[in-house]
């Protein structure tokens, strides 16, 4: 019933600099700072001049976060930090409007955050060969209730109760457009017969 192994789940890989690109936009959230710092240091090794064409957008998850100092020390062209995801997304959208062909986008953070950044990338017609993503941090999922069309944020459990009062099982089927996994009623065939709640997306 809990259907896994579905191929629509995005595939992530450790970030590597794409030196074919001319401009580099890096976007991170919380612990996404770690892969971004590693990416910057790889870039310094491979092509230091690329750092002058690199800009970082970052949402710090915790107030005392040393990541921003590390970014500044890397000698990048610009660092933009935000307290909220929505503010970052709005600012990134504005920057994309002025961006030029030759730009590469790198995203690091929890999947639920990356999904929102990917939607912006899609709006600007960035294709698979222009975007790289590395998942880190919480595996909590955004879940789209297929019955009432609402979205549940930060789902950590195998089943979850939706606002429509149905218990949903989270399928591995992922929609980039909705930036969410599909949630389907778990006990439709046998009302009340639900698996035990387990924390699975940590």
């Amino acid at each position, binding site marked *: 019933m809990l259907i896994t192994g579905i191929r629509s789940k995005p595939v992530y890989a450790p970030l590597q600099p794409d030196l*074919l*690109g*001319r*401009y580099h936009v890096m976007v991170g959230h919380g612990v996404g700072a770690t892969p971004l710092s590693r990416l910057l240091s790889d870039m310094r090794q491979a092509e230091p001049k690329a750092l002058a064409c690199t800009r970082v957008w970052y949402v710090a998850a915790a107030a005392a976060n040393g990541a921003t100092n590390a970014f500044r020390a890397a000698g990048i062209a610009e660092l933009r930090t935000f307290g909220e995801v929505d503010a970052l997304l709005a600012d990134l959208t504005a920057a*994309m*409007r002025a*961006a*030029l*062909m*030759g*730009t*590469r986008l790198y995203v690091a953070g929890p999947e639920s955050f990356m999904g929102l950044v990917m939607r912006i990338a899609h709006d*600007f*017609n*960035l*294709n*698979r*060969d*222009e975007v790289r993503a590395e998942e880190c941090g919480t595996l909590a999922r955004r879940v789209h209730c297929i019955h009432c069309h609402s979205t549940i944020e930060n789902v950590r459990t195998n089943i979850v109760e939706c606002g429509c009062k149905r218990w949903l099982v989270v399928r591995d089927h992922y929609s980039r457009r909705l930036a969410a996994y599909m949630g389907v009623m778990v006990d439709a065939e046998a009302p009340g017969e639900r698996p035990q709640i387990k924390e699975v997306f940590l």
Partner: protein
Amino acid sequence: MSHSHADTIPVRVVAVEQVTPQIKHFIFAPTGGGELPAFSGGSHIIVVMRGAQRVFRNPYSLMSSPNELDTYQISVLRVDPSRGGSAFMHEQVRVGSELEIAHPVNLFALAKLARKHLLLAGGIGITPFMAQLHDLRLTDVPYEIHYATRSPEHGAYCELIAQAEPQRARLYHDSAAKFIDIEGLLSHQPLGTHVYVCGPAGMITRVLETARALGWPDSHVHYEKFSAPPTGEAFDAYLDKSGIALHVLPDQSLLEAIEAAGVDAPYLCRGGVCGFCRTDVVAVDGELIHNDHYLSDEEKASGKAIMPCVSRARCSKLVLSL
């Protein structure tokens, strides 16, 4: 599953015009009346020419409006020295001639999610863009066309383009030392732009190399290359599955020789780009001459596959899995 091309459309030539010293413009109407199949800008057709000794099948871009289907229009550059196809069109085809064409195929389609289209045409390479401009005028997406020719005299459709696109077209003539500033153009395009190039091989190579150097990803760079299959030495081939032996003439492509032997081999572009005619090589007692843009370097080196539409062999016998 076979992809036979028995299903061609008979057409009659209703107009022929010499538009430049080397280019003729042809208008085809369906022999049986009615409309020709709808198509999208960037499509080409294969024109089947039945010469006295040989059958030629050449691809030509449709340049007429996709919204007007009473006729199709193509332009044919006389290639010198011609292998036969373009000479046939120039010398033998006149008003009233009957030809066969295959259904349109689009291997040079506009990207529908592009935020801007940048069209770069050189010489006869203007033709697919002429059809695409009709499609682009119906959208809200910005576009520009840059059209380079040797001289105004050789620019078949300069006036037409300038009139149709006064704001969006720029014309360049080698004779006036005006050249497309490829690097300048590709340096300053907004995110989500797609570039399309059709023209002489040198121009296509320059655009592809410049785009790559400026960080353009392959998915935003589109090109259409129609080149006659390179000539070479004659050789013998054997079709393993059909049990047919054949001889490939110096100015004949392997695909043409296979077709002349009565074997219905698959193809789409006839230009070594699409990969559709890829054929397994069973054995060769010499060297394969790969002229395609489809097989990877490793595949070419392995000698296990060939694109018979443009590639050939320097050998006495090539055995194919056909």
